[in-house]
Protein backbone atom coordinates (compact mmCIF):
# COMPACT_ATOMS: atom_id res chain seq x y z
CA UNK A 1 0.00 0.00 0.00
CA UNK A 2 1.19 3.46 -0.87
CA UNK A 3 0.62 4.71 2.69
CA UNK A 4 2.82 2.14 4.41
CA UNK A 5 5.80 4.42 4.81
CA UNK A 6 6.96 7.43 6.81
CA UNK A 7 4.70 9.77 4.85
CA UNK A 8 1.45 7.97 5.60
CA UNK A 9 2.06 5.99 8.78
CA UNK A 10 2.04 7.52 12.25
CA UNK A 11 2.96 4.35 14.12
CA UNK A 12 2.61 0.60 13.84
CA UNK A 13 1.63 -1.76 16.64
CA UNK A 14 2.45 -5.42 16.60
CA UNK A 15 0.81 -7.44 19.34
CA UNK A 16 1.58 -11.11 19.77
CA UNK A 17 -0.61 -13.48 21.61
CA UNK A 18 1.36 -15.49 24.12
CA UNK A 19 -0.45 -18.61 25.17
CA UNK A 20 -0.25 -19.78 28.72
CA UNK A 21 0.85 -23.37 28.71
CA UNK A 22 1.02 -24.95 32.11
CA UNK A 23 3.64 -27.38 30.94
CA UNK A 24 6.02 -24.46 30.55
CA UNK A 25 5.91 -23.56 34.20
CA UNK A 26 5.73 -27.11 35.45
CA UNK A 27 9.00 -27.87 33.86
CA UNK A 28 8.48 -30.13 30.91
CA UNK A 29 11.89 -29.91 29.30
CA UNK A 30 13.39 -28.24 32.36
CA UNK A 31 11.01 -25.34 33.00
CA UNK A 32 11.42 -23.67 29.65
CA UNK A 33 9.58 -20.41 30.23
CA UNK A 34 11.37 -19.59 33.47
CA UNK A 35 14.63 -19.60 31.55
CA UNK A 36 13.29 -17.85 28.48
CA UNK A 37 10.84 -15.07 29.30
CA UNK A 38 8.71 -13.10 26.88
CA UNK A 39 11.57 -11.42 25.00
CA UNK A 40 13.21 -14.69 23.98
CA UNK A 41 10.01 -16.72 23.75
CA UNK A 42 7.98 -14.33 21.57
CA UNK A 43 9.72 -11.12 20.48
CA UNK A 44 12.92 -12.53 18.99
CA UNK A 45 11.10 -14.95 16.75
CA UNK A 46 7.31 -14.59 16.30
CA UNK A 47 7.04 -10.82 16.72
CA UNK A 48 10.15 -10.06 14.69
CA UNK A 49 8.71 -12.14 11.86
CA UNK A 50 5.60 -9.96 11.86
CA UNK A 51 7.78 -6.85 11.95
CA UNK A 52 9.86 -8.06 9.01
CA UNK A 53 6.83 -8.94 6.89
CA UNK A 54 5.14 -5.62 7.68
CA UNK A 55 8.12 -3.39 6.97
CA UNK A 56 9.92 -5.22 4.17
CA UNK A 57 10.14 -3.88 0.64
CA UNK A 58 8.18 -5.85 -1.95
CA UNK A 59 10.35 -8.71 -3.21
CA UNK A 60 11.14 -8.89 -6.91
CA UNK A 61 9.40 -12.25 -7.15
CA UNK A 62 8.04 -15.04 -4.96
CA UNK A 63 11.32 -16.92 -4.91
CA UNK A 64 12.12 -17.88 -1.28
CA UNK A 65 15.50 -16.16 -1.37
CA UNK A 66 13.95 -12.94 -2.69
CA UNK A 67 11.50 -12.85 0.21
CA UNK A 68 13.97 -13.90 2.87
CA UNK A 69 16.50 -11.38 1.55
CA UNK A 70 14.03 -8.53 2.04
CA UNK A 71 13.09 -9.69 5.53
CA UNK A 72 16.66 -9.75 6.78
CA UNK A 73 17.17 -6.16 5.60
CA UNK A 74 14.40 -5.08 7.99
CA UNK A 75 15.91 -6.85 10.99
CA UNK A 76 19.34 -5.42 10.21
CA UNK A 77 17.85 -1.93 9.97
CA UNK A 78 16.47 -1.92 13.54
CA UNK A 79 18.07 0.99 15.30
CA UNK A 80 19.92 -0.26 18.42
CA UNK A 81 18.23 0.75 21.65
CA UNK A 82 20.14 3.28 23.67
CA UNK A 83 19.87 2.82 27.40
CA UNK A 84 19.92 6.50 28.38
CA UNK A 85 16.16 6.47 28.88
CA UNK A 86 15.30 2.77 28.82
CA UNK A 87 11.75 3.36 30.08
CA UNK A 88 10.97 5.17 26.82
CA UNK A 89 11.95 2.18 24.71
CA UNK A 90 11.62 -0.90 26.80
CA UNK A 91 9.21 -2.33 29.36
CA UNK A 92 9.18 -5.68 31.08
CA UNK A 93 6.83 -6.88 33.79
CA UNK A 94 5.32 -9.90 35.50
CA UNK A 95 1.65 -10.65 35.98
CA UNK A 96 0.15 -10.60 39.45
CA UNK A 97 -3.00 -12.41 40.53
CA UNK A 98 -6.16 -11.42 38.71
CA UNK A 99 -9.11 -12.62 36.64
CA UNK A 100 -8.70 -14.08 33.14
CA UNK A 101 -11.69 -15.19 31.08
CA UNK A 102 -13.81 -15.03 34.22
CA UNK A 103 -11.54 -17.19 36.33
CA UNK A 104 -9.28 -16.15 39.17
CA UNK A 105 -5.64 -16.98 38.46
CA UNK A 106 -2.53 -16.70 40.66
CA UNK A 107 0.39 -14.36 40.01
CA UNK A 108 3.39 -15.63 38.07
CA UNK A 109 5.50 -15.95 41.20
CA UNK A 110 2.84 -18.16 42.79
CA UNK A 111 2.63 -20.52 39.83
CA UNK A 112 3.87 -24.07 40.34
CA UNK A 113 7.46 -24.53 39.29
CA UNK A 114 8.32 -20.83 39.35
CA UNK A 115 11.06 -19.42 41.58
CA UNK A 116 9.37 -17.01 44.05
CA UNK A 117 12.21 -14.55 43.39
CA UNK A 118 12.06 -15.00 39.63
CA UNK A 119 12.81 -12.01 37.39
CA UNK A 120 11.52 -13.73 34.28
CA UNK A 121 9.38 -11.27 32.35
CA UNK A 122 5.91 -12.37 31.26
CA UNK A 123 5.29 -9.07 29.43
CA UNK A 124 7.57 -7.14 27.12
CA UNK A 125 6.94 -4.04 25.05
CA UNK A 126 9.51 -2.35 22.84
CA UNK A 127 9.45 0.82 20.84
CA UNK A 128 11.69 0.41 17.82
CA UNK A 129 12.74 2.50 14.87
CA UNK A 130 14.03 1.28 11.54
CA UNK A 131 16.98 3.05 9.94
CA UNK A 132 15.64 3.11 6.42
CA UNK A 133 14.41 5.78 4.05
CA UNK A 134 10.98 4.24 4.05
CA UNK A 135 10.44 4.00 7.79
CA UNK A 136 12.75 6.58 9.40
CA UNK A 137 11.01 8.21 12.37
CA UNK A 138 8.02 5.85 12.47
CA UNK A 139 7.71 4.06 15.84
CA UNK A 140 7.04 0.34 15.79
CA UNK A 141 5.61 -0.78 19.12
CA UNK A 142 6.02 -4.50 19.73
CA UNK A 143 4.36 -6.11 22.70
CA UNK A 144 3.59 -9.53 24.01
CA UNK A 145 2.40 -10.80 27.33
CA UNK A 146 0.85 -13.66 29.17
CA UNK A 147 -2.46 -13.46 30.99
CA UNK A 148 -3.57 -10.24 29.29
CA UNK A 149 -7.20 -9.19 28.94
CA UNK A 150 -7.39 -10.35 25.34
CA UNK A 151 -5.55 -13.04 23.42
CA UNK A 152 -4.78 -11.43 20.12
CA UNK A 153 -2.05 -11.42 17.48
CA UNK A 154 -2.34 -8.50 15.11
CA UNK A 155 -0.57 -5.80 13.18
CA UNK A 156 -2.21 -2.38 13.48
CA UNK A 157 -1.05 0.46 11.26
CA UNK A 158 -2.16 3.87 12.51
CA UNK A 159 -2.21 6.34 9.65
CA UNK A 160 -1.26 9.96 9.93
CA UNK A 161 -4.09 12.47 9.88
CA UNK A 162 -4.51 14.44 6.68
CA UNK A 163 -2.81 17.85 6.66
CA UNK A 164 -6.15 19.63 6.77
CA UNK A 165 -8.98 18.15 8.84
CA UNK A 166 -12.00 20.16 7.86
CA UNK A 167 -14.37 17.62 9.44
CA UNK A 168 -12.34 17.65 12.65
CA UNK A 169 -12.93 21.37 13.06
CA UNK A 170 -16.50 20.62 14.02
CA UNK A 171 -17.14 18.66 17.19
CA UNK A 172 -14.64 16.17 18.57
CA UNK A 173 -11.24 15.62 16.93
CA UNK A 174 -11.09 12.76 14.46
CA UNK A 175 -9.54 9.45 15.35
CA UNK A 176 -6.73 8.13 13.20
CA UNK A 177 -7.61 5.66 10.48
CA UNK A 178 -6.32 2.22 11.40
CA UNK A 179 -5.55 -0.83 9.29
CA UNK A 180 -5.64 -3.96 11.47
CA UNK A 181 -4.38 -7.26 10.16
CA UNK A 182 -5.56 -10.00 12.51
CA UNK A 183 -3.52 -13.16 12.66
CA UNK A 184 -5.27 -14.72 15.64
CA UNK A 185 -8.10 -15.19 16.39
CA UNK A 186 -10.49 -14.73 13.44
CA UNK A 187 -7.91 -14.09 10.73
CA UNK A 188 -8.85 -11.06 8.71
CA UNK A 189 -8.38 -7.39 7.97
CA UNK A 190 -10.26 -4.42 9.38
CA UNK A 191 -10.00 -0.88 8.11
CA UNK A 192 -11.25 1.56 10.72
CA UNK A 193 -12.08 4.88 9.07
CA UNK A 194 -13.94 8.05 9.92
CA UNK A 195 -17.20 8.22 8.00
CA UNK A 196 -19.61 11.11 7.75
CA UNK A 197 -22.90 10.32 9.41
CA UNK A 198 -25.70 10.56 6.82
CA UNK A 199 -27.84 13.63 7.16
CA UNK A 200 -27.60 17.38 7.09
CA UNK A 201 -25.32 17.75 10.07
CA UNK A 202 -21.55 17.65 9.62
CA UNK A 203 -20.66 14.87 11.99
CA UNK A 204 -18.17 12.05 11.67
CA UNK A 205 -17.88 8.72 13.42
CA UNK A 206 -15.36 5.88 13.16
CA UNK A 207 -16.68 2.75 11.43
CA UNK A 208 -15.14 -0.63 10.63
CA UNK A 209 -14.79 -2.24 7.21
CA UNK A 210 -14.29 -5.90 7.95
CA UNK A 211 -12.92 -8.82 6.03
CA UNK A 212 -12.80 -12.24 7.69
CA UNK A 213 -11.10 -15.23 6.13
CA UNK A 214 -13.41 -17.65 7.87
CA UNK A 215 -16.66 -16.26 6.52
CA UNK A 216 -15.36 -15.08 3.12
CA UNK A 217 -13.91 -18.32 1.86
CA UNK A 218 -15.91 -20.80 3.86
CA UNK A 219 -12.99 -23.05 4.50
CA UNK A 220 -10.82 -23.67 7.52
CA UNK A 221 -7.44 -21.90 7.55
CA UNK A 222 -4.71 -24.52 8.10
CA UNK A 223 -2.89 -24.49 11.41
CA UNK A 224 0.41 -22.59 11.22
CA UNK A 225 2.55 -25.65 11.91
CA UNK A 226 0.52 -27.74 9.47
CA UNK A 227 1.63 -25.36 6.71
CA UNK A 228 5.25 -25.34 7.89
CA UNK A 229 5.47 -29.12 8.03
CA UNK A 230 3.96 -29.39 4.58
CA UNK A 231 6.45 -26.84 3.24
CA UNK A 232 9.30 -28.79 4.80
CA UNK A 233 8.15 -31.93 3.00
CA UNK A 234 7.98 -30.00 -0.27
CA UNK A 235 11.37 -28.38 0.27
CA UNK A 236 9.93 -24.85 0.27
CA UNK A 237 11.84 -22.74 2.81
CA UNK A 238 10.07 -19.41 2.24
CA UNK A 239 8.55 -19.34 5.72
CA UNK A 240 11.69 -20.57 7.46
CA UNK A 241 14.05 -18.04 8.96
CA UNK A 242 17.48 -17.82 7.37
CA UNK A 243 20.58 -17.96 9.57
CA UNK A 244 21.64 -14.36 8.83
CA UNK A 245 18.21 -13.12 9.95
CA UNK A 246 18.46 -15.14 13.15
CA UNK A 247 21.91 -13.73 13.86
CA UNK A 248 20.72 -10.17 13.18
CA UNK A 249 17.78 -10.56 15.54
CA UNK A 250 19.88 -12.05 18.33
CA UNK A 251 22.47 -9.29 18.07
CA UNK A 252 19.64 -6.84 18.85
CA UNK A 253 18.00 -8.97 21.54
CA UNK A 254 21.23 -9.83 23.34
CA UNK A 255 21.95 -6.17 24.07
CA UNK A 256 18.64 -5.95 25.89
CA UNK A 257 19.22 -9.17 27.77
CA UNK A 258 22.65 -7.93 28.88
CA UNK A 259 21.08 -4.66 30.05
CA UNK A 260 18.37 -6.47 32.00
CA UNK A 261 20.90 -8.83 33.55
CA UNK A 262 22.57 -5.82 35.16
CA UNK A 263 19.32 -4.57 36.70
CA UNK A 264 18.36 -5.29 40.30
CA UNK A 265 15.06 -5.49 42.16
CA UNK A 266 11.66 -6.96 41.42
CA UNK A 267 9.92 -6.37 38.11
CA UNK A 268 6.90 -4.10 37.72
CA UNK A 269 3.64 -6.03 37.93
CA UNK A 270 0.34 -5.99 36.09
CA UNK A 271 -2.86 -7.67 37.14
CA UNK A 272 -3.67 -10.82 35.22
CA UNK A 273 -6.55 -10.00 32.89
CA UNK A 274 -5.48 -6.37 32.48
CA UNK A 275 -4.00 -4.69 29.41
CA UNK A 276 -0.48 -4.75 30.85
CA UNK A 277 1.64 -2.67 33.21
CA UNK A 278 1.17 1.06 33.72
CA UNK A 279 4.84 1.52 32.89
CA UNK A 280 4.08 0.63 29.26
CA UNK A 281 2.36 3.97 28.75
CA UNK A 282 5.71 5.74 29.00
CA UNK A 283 6.69 4.20 25.67
CA UNK A 284 4.54 6.75 23.87
CA UNK A 285 4.81 9.59 26.35
CA UNK A 286 5.18 13.02 24.82
CA UNK A 287 4.41 12.01 21.27
CA UNK A 288 0.73 12.91 21.35
CA UNK A 289 0.00 9.30 20.48
CA UNK A 290 -2.40 6.98 22.20
CA UNK A 291 -1.69 3.55 23.60
CA UNK A 292 -3.53 1.04 21.47
CA UNK A 293 -6.00 -1.03 23.43
CA UNK A 294 -5.64 -4.76 23.36
Amino acid at each position, binding site marked *: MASLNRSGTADTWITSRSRWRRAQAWGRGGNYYERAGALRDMIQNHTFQLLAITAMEPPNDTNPESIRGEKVKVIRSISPITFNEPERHLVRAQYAA*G*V*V*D*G*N*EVPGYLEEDGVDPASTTETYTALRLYLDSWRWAGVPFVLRTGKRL*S*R*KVTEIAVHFKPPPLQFFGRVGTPLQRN*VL*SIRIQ*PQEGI*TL*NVNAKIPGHATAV*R*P*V*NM*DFAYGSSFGRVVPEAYERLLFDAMKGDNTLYTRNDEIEASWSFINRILDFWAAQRGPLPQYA*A*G*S*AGPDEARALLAGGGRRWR*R*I
Partner: protein
Amino acid sequence: MTVDVVAVEKELARIQRELTNSEVRTSLFNLVVFSRNAAETMASEALNYLLGKRAARVIHIVSDPAADGEIESRLDVSARCYVDAERKSVCFQEIVITNGSDGAGGAPGSWVPLLVRDIPTIILWLDTLRDRREVLAHAQEQAEKVLVDTEHSNFARRPGGRHPR
Protein backbone atom coordinates in the same frame (compact mmCIF):
# COMPACT_ATOMS: atom_id res chain seq x y z
CA MET B 1 -17.76 -18.72 35.24
CA THR B 2 -15.46 -19.15 32.27
CA VAL B 3 -15.74 -16.58 29.51
CA ASP B 4 -15.32 -18.42 26.23
CA VAL B 5 -15.14 -15.58 23.74
CA VAL B 6 -15.46 -17.80 20.67
CA ALA B 7 -18.54 -19.52 22.12
CA VAL B 8 -20.13 -16.17 23.01
CA GLU B 9 -19.56 -14.80 19.50
CA LYS B 10 -21.01 -17.94 17.94
CA GLU B 11 -24.04 -17.83 20.17
CA LEU B 12 -24.69 -14.17 19.41
CA ALA B 13 -24.43 -14.87 15.70
CA ARG B 14 -26.81 -17.82 16.03
CA ILE B 15 -29.38 -15.78 17.93
CA GLN B 16 -29.19 -12.99 15.35
CA ARG B 17 -29.71 -15.48 12.53
CA GLU B 18 -32.79 -16.80 14.31
CA LEU B 19 -34.19 -13.33 14.84
CA THR B 20 -33.81 -11.98 11.37
CA ASN B 21 -33.42 -13.17 7.80
CA SER B 22 -32.25 -9.83 6.52
CA GLU B 23 -28.78 -8.36 6.45
CA VAL B 24 -27.50 -7.33 9.86
CA ARG B 25 -25.76 -4.03 10.41
CA THR B 26 -22.45 -4.25 12.24
CA SER B 27 -22.11 -2.76 15.70
CA LEU B 28 -21.18 0.90 15.79
CA PHE B 29 -20.21 1.11 19.44
CA ASN B 30 -19.85 -0.84 22.65
CA LEU B 31 -21.96 0.18 25.61
CA VAL B 32 -20.85 -1.21 28.96
CA VAL B 33 -23.35 -0.69 31.76
CA PHE B 34 -22.32 -1.20 35.37
CA SER B 35 -25.24 -1.38 37.78
CA ARG B 36 -26.17 -2.82 41.14
CA ASN B 37 -29.01 -4.93 39.82
CA ALA B 38 -30.24 -6.22 36.50
CA ALA B 39 -33.46 -4.21 36.35
CA GLU B 40 -31.78 -0.81 36.36
CA THR B 41 -34.37 1.65 35.11
CA MET B 42 -32.04 4.17 33.53
CA ALA B 43 -30.14 1.47 31.65
CA SER B 44 -33.38 0.04 30.32
CA GLU B 45 -34.56 3.49 29.25
CA ALA B 46 -31.33 4.21 27.45
CA LEU B 47 -31.36 0.87 25.66
CA ASN B 48 -34.99 1.17 24.66
CA TYR B 49 -34.26 4.61 23.24
CA LEU B 50 -31.35 3.32 21.18
CA LEU B 51 -33.00 0.10 20.01
CA GLY B 52 -33.52 0.18 16.28
CA LYS B 53 -31.44 3.31 15.82
CA ARG B 54 -27.86 2.13 16.25
CA ALA B 55 -26.48 -1.36 16.10
CA ALA B 56 -24.41 -1.90 19.22
CA ARG B 57 -22.91 -4.41 21.57
CA VAL B 58 -24.19 -3.95 25.09
CA ILE B 59 -22.39 -5.53 28.01
CA HIS B 60 -24.29 -5.22 31.26
CA ILE B 61 -22.33 -5.97 34.40
CA VAL B 62 -24.52 -6.49 37.46
CA SER B 63 -22.41 -6.03 40.54
CA ASP B 64 -24.64 -7.04 43.44
CA PRO B 65 -24.89 -10.80 43.83
CA ALA B 66 -27.18 -10.55 46.84
CA ALA B 67 -29.78 -8.65 44.86
CA ASP B 68 -30.29 -11.55 42.50
CA GLY B 69 -29.37 -14.31 44.89
CA GLU B 70 -26.32 -15.22 42.81
CA ILE B 71 -23.28 -16.90 44.30
CA GLU B 72 -21.16 -17.63 41.25
CA SER B 73 -20.61 -15.17 38.44
CA ARG B 74 -22.56 -16.04 35.32
CA LEU B 75 -22.85 -14.86 31.75
CA ASP B 76 -25.96 -14.72 29.55
CA VAL B 77 -26.23 -13.60 25.95
CA SER B 78 -29.21 -12.42 23.95
CA ALA B 79 -30.04 -10.11 21.07
CA ARG B 80 -32.78 -7.69 20.15
CA CYS B 81 -33.26 -6.78 16.52
CA TYR B 82 -35.30 -4.25 14.62
CA VAL B 83 -35.65 -4.18 10.84
CA ASP B 84 -35.11 -0.65 9.54
CA ALA B 85 -36.53 1.05 6.45
CA GLU B 86 -33.78 -0.41 4.27
CA ARG B 87 -34.71 -3.94 5.36
CA LYS B 88 -31.52 -4.22 7.34
CA SER B 89 -31.58 -5.44 10.90
CA VAL B 90 -30.32 -3.16 13.60
CA CYS B 91 -29.41 -5.42 16.49
CA PHE B 92 -28.39 -5.03 20.08
CA GLN B 93 -26.12 -7.85 21.02
CA GLU B 94 -26.57 -8.11 24.75
CA ILE B 95 -24.27 -9.81 27.19
CA VAL B 96 -25.19 -9.81 30.86
CA ILE B 97 -22.49 -10.69 33.34
CA THR B 98 -23.83 -11.20 36.83
CA ASN B 99 -21.02 -10.70 39.27
CA GLY B 100 -20.86 -13.42 41.89
CA SER B 101 -19.42 -13.38 45.35
CA ASP B 102 -16.05 -14.23 43.80
CA GLY B 103 -16.03 -10.75 42.22
CA ALA B 104 -14.76 -12.19 38.95
CA GLY B 105 -17.61 -10.89 36.83
CA GLY B 106 -16.66 -7.23 37.12
CA ALA B 107 -12.95 -7.72 36.47
CA PRO B 108 -11.68 -6.42 33.12
CA GLY B 109 -10.47 -9.92 32.29
CA SER B 110 -14.10 -11.02 32.14
CA TRP B 111 -15.62 -8.35 29.91
CA VAL B 112 -12.82 -6.66 27.94
CA PRO B 113 -12.36 -9.66 25.62
CA LEU B 114 -16.04 -9.29 24.68
CA LEU B 115 -15.73 -5.73 23.38
CA VAL B 116 -15.84 -5.26 19.63
CA ARG B 117 -12.47 -3.79 18.77
CA ASP B 118 -11.73 -0.48 17.08
CA ILE B 119 -15.13 1.06 17.66
CA PRO B 120 -16.01 3.55 20.40
CA THR B 121 -16.72 2.23 23.88
CA ILE B 122 -19.01 4.05 26.26
CA ILE B 123 -19.24 3.23 29.94
CA LEU B 124 -22.54 3.93 31.69
CA TRP B 125 -21.85 3.76 35.43
CA LEU B 126 -25.03 3.26 37.44
CA ASP B 127 -23.25 1.65 40.35
CA THR B 128 -21.96 2.89 43.67
CA LEU B 129 -18.43 4.27 43.81
CA ARG B 130 -17.88 2.98 47.32
CA ASP B 131 -15.28 0.17 47.06
CA ARG B 132 -15.69 0.26 43.29
CA ARG B 133 -13.32 3.05 42.26
CA GLU B 134 -10.70 0.60 41.03
CA VAL B 135 -13.26 -1.13 38.81
CA LEU B 136 -14.27 2.24 37.38
CA ALA B 137 -10.62 3.18 36.82
CA HIS B 138 -10.04 -0.03 34.84
CA ALA B 139 -13.21 0.58 32.88
CA GLN B 140 -12.10 4.11 32.03
CA GLU B 141 -9.01 2.74 30.31
CA GLN B 142 -11.24 0.97 27.83
CA ALA B 143 -13.59 3.82 27.05
CA GLU B 144 -13.94 6.91 24.92
CA LYS B 145 -16.64 8.23 27.22
CA VAL B 146 -17.64 7.48 30.80
CA LEU B 147 -21.07 8.56 32.04
CA VAL B 148 -21.47 8.41 35.81
CA ASP B 149 -24.93 8.78 37.29
CA THR B 150 -24.29 10.29 40.70
CA GLU B 151 -27.75 9.22 41.84
CA HIS B 152 -26.18 5.83 42.44
CA SER B 153 -22.66 6.75 43.36
CA ASN B 154 -22.91 7.89 46.99
CA PHE B 155 -21.65 11.41 46.36
CA ALA B 156 -22.47 13.86 49.11
CA ARG B 157 -25.83 15.48 48.61
CA ARG B 158 -26.07 19.17 47.93
CA PRO B 159 -27.69 21.38 50.61
CA GLY B 160 -30.96 21.25 48.71
CA GLY B 161 -30.98 17.50 49.15
CA ARG B 162 -30.39 16.70 45.49
CA HIS B 163 -27.49 14.78 44.06
CA PRO B 164 -25.21 16.52 41.55
CA ARG B 165 -25.75 14.94 38.15
